[in-house]
């Protein structure tokens, strides 16, 4: 039953992910790839859509994956799943255990989680880089360098660097996505 599977997968993701939408990316990638819901390319497209539309990224990702696997009921199931743990945990904190974060044990647990989530995000980005730029998925997979991808990355890095010299916030994600869409059309069409 795909709806239940979507619901419970996202329920698990919502319960154990720390650090918001980006902290969720490694968990979501692992789940959608191992369940054959999305390919690596679909996964990247999905993140692009979630980033360039309004609203919480996590909700966008859940709705998108849910819709791709089970239409409207699927997207409801996935979204409910990702939201429910947050909702319950925050209600408990707001209503009952206001100083949960002040407990030393909880602080200690979180102090281990923070570097972990940072590591997970960086590792996921590295894996995606190997896959998209070099075509390496596993140890024995053949090697193919995508020169165009490197060219786009270089342009993005230069533009962002120059913008940050003037404004520390830099170019917003949606601006970077638009720029790379144009570069993609130019470089891959010819």
């Amino acid at each position, binding site marked *: 039953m795909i709806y239940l599977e979507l619901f419970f997968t996202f329920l698990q993701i919502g319960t154990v992910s720390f650090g*918001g939408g980006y902290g969720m990316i490694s968990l979501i990638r692992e789940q959608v790839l191992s369940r054959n819901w999305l390919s690596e390319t679909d996964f990247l497209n999905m993140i692009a859509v979630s980033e360039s539309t309004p609203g919480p990224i*996590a909700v966008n990702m859940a709705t998108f994956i849910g819709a791709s696997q089970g239409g409207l009921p699927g997207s409801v199931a996935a979204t409910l799943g990702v939201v429910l743990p947050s909702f319950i945990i*925050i209600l408990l904190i707001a209503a009952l255990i206001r100083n949960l974060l002040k407990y030393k044990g909880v602080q200690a647990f979180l102090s281990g989680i923070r570097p972990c989530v940072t590591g997970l*995000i960086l590792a996921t980005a590295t894996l995606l880089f190997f896959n998209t730029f070099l075509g390496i998925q596993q140890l024995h997979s053949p090697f193919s360098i995508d020169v165009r991808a490197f060219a786009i990355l270089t342009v993005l890095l230069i533009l962002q660097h120059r913008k940050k010299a003037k404004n520390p916030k830099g170019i917003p994600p*949606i601006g970077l996505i638009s720029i790379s869409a144009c570069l993609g059309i130019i470089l891959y069409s010819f």
Partner: protein
Amino acid sequence: MKTYVTLFLTMLKTGLFTFGGGYAMIALLENEFVSQKKWIEKEEFLDMVAIAESTPGPIAINAATYIGYKMLRFRGALLATVGVCIPSFIIIYIISLFFDQFLSLTLVANAFKGIQVCVIYLIFSAGIKMLKGIPKTPFNIIIMTFVISAMIITSFLAVRFSTLYYILICGMCGVSMYLLKRLSKNKEDAA
């Protein structure tokens, strides 16, 4: 009744007009609930942000649930959470209906090849931003190095090791570290 409607509409507006997820939303929520409507004290809002960031789940949902509960208890929490999700849900659902057809156009497919590069860049920068915010203690550096290398190696060797375990193991490391420190402190005190 009026407060229910205002809370719901404000959350709906927040969900509709923020790009870039939780952190962008927090700035908007502060403007709405603290500066303009004065429904929540500045200090309480900052507490809320700390809670939203350190509890699991989407930061935007955590924040909405908390603010809704503070204002109108359970019903407020429900209204606020539903309100902040609805715009996302509708927009993404509509996009998903046309997305595959849209991608079958060569021009669009090529644009998305460019966008994929950008997404990897965005994930990297999110990671680097978090890295900059973490104190470079030996404990943090060891945990990060362990997670990054273990995840890359298991993936290349096609060994399945769930991300969930990394999170639990590292949380436990944090707790053990704390217990060890307390233990050695007790010993010092005794000596």
